[in-house]
């Protein structure tokens, strides 16, 4: 006899509503694979392409151990992701929680959020925009560890030659996202 579904759901809702969670998360389907979407009370803190991996442990270390699958707090983010993938949304209207991110990386990710839908920039270009024109490599590292891909659009940063270079979620996904935004031809 397992916990009745309605009771399980009621507990998960109530835990979030009572403010007892450090992180709420839910899994969501997308054209680039199943995603884990997680949020603190401050905003979306993680989107992962690998929901089966060690994500929950990472979340517990970064934000606190009260990590629970609880759909309601991430409903808005999931809906906006759906709209994005259906090409009905070009900008995310979501708070993002980058509290667990080191300062330099946060600077990079905040600047990155200004690169609009359908556009790209380069690692060096982004480095210049944060006033550290020689830090292209460090910028690459910061993007590689972006905890909130898609919403914080690290896929819009490409190599100086226009090559895709790299993506934590795999180059195929980067290509798909850029194609979705109409940035890549073919």
């Amino acid at each position, binding site marked *: 006899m397992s916990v009745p579904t309605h009771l399980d759901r009621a507990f998960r809702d109530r835990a979030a509503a009572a403010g007892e969670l450090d992180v709420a998360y839910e899994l969501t389907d997308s054209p680039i694979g199943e995603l884990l979407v997680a949020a603190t009370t401050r905003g979306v803190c993680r989107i992962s392409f690998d929901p089966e991996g060690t994500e929950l442990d990472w979340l517990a270390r970064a934000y606190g151990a*009260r990590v*629970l699958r609880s759909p309601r707090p991430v409903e808005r983010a999931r809906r906006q992701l759906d709209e994005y993938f259906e090409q009905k949304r070009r900008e995310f209207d979501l708070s993002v929680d980058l509290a667990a991110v080191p300062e330099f990386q946060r600077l990079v990710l905040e600047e990155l959020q200004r690169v609009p839908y359908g556009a790209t920039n380069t690692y060096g270009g982004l480095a210049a925009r944060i006033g550290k024109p020689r830090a292209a490599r460090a910028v690459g590292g910061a993007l590689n560890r972006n905890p909130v891909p898609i919403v914080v659009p690290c896929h819009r940063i490409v190599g100086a030659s226009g090559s895709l270079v790299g993506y934590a979620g795999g180059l195929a996904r980067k290509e798909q996202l850029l194609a979705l935004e109409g940035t890549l031809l073919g």
Partner: protein
Amino acid sequence: MEAVAIPPFERLYSETSDEIWRYLVRLLGRQAAEDAFQETFLRALRAYPKLAHGRQLRAWVYTIATRVAVDERRRRSPAGSVPELGSDDVRPAYAELEHLSTDLPAKERAAVVLRYGYDLTYADIAAALGSTEAAARQAASSGVRRLRRRIS
């Protein structure tokens, strides 16, 4: 002792929620078990940040569930009579044990009830009582001897 990391709450919840649900249904009946279930895991969540380590968390959840169930049964029968158990799936062993063992020393009583009523391992009981496994075993066996003398 080696530090054991506190796992994400989801893991503890998904590993224990089914058995805690069954346990509460046995103790309280299905209807009251619903509230008790939520209360148990909410209390666990509230206390979770204060845990010093991740050992014996299953036993820890059982002790919370037990406390919630006892509160609920006390609430139902304020006169202190032995409350009726509400489900067909009751384990009379538990009810009788709890009743019989009320005047055992606290530690022996807890050990007897957790071992023979709830079927917890000695490792889990030790964690629940904050003692060693050997001491838990000792407490349960001397509790049983005492009960036996009383019954015979």
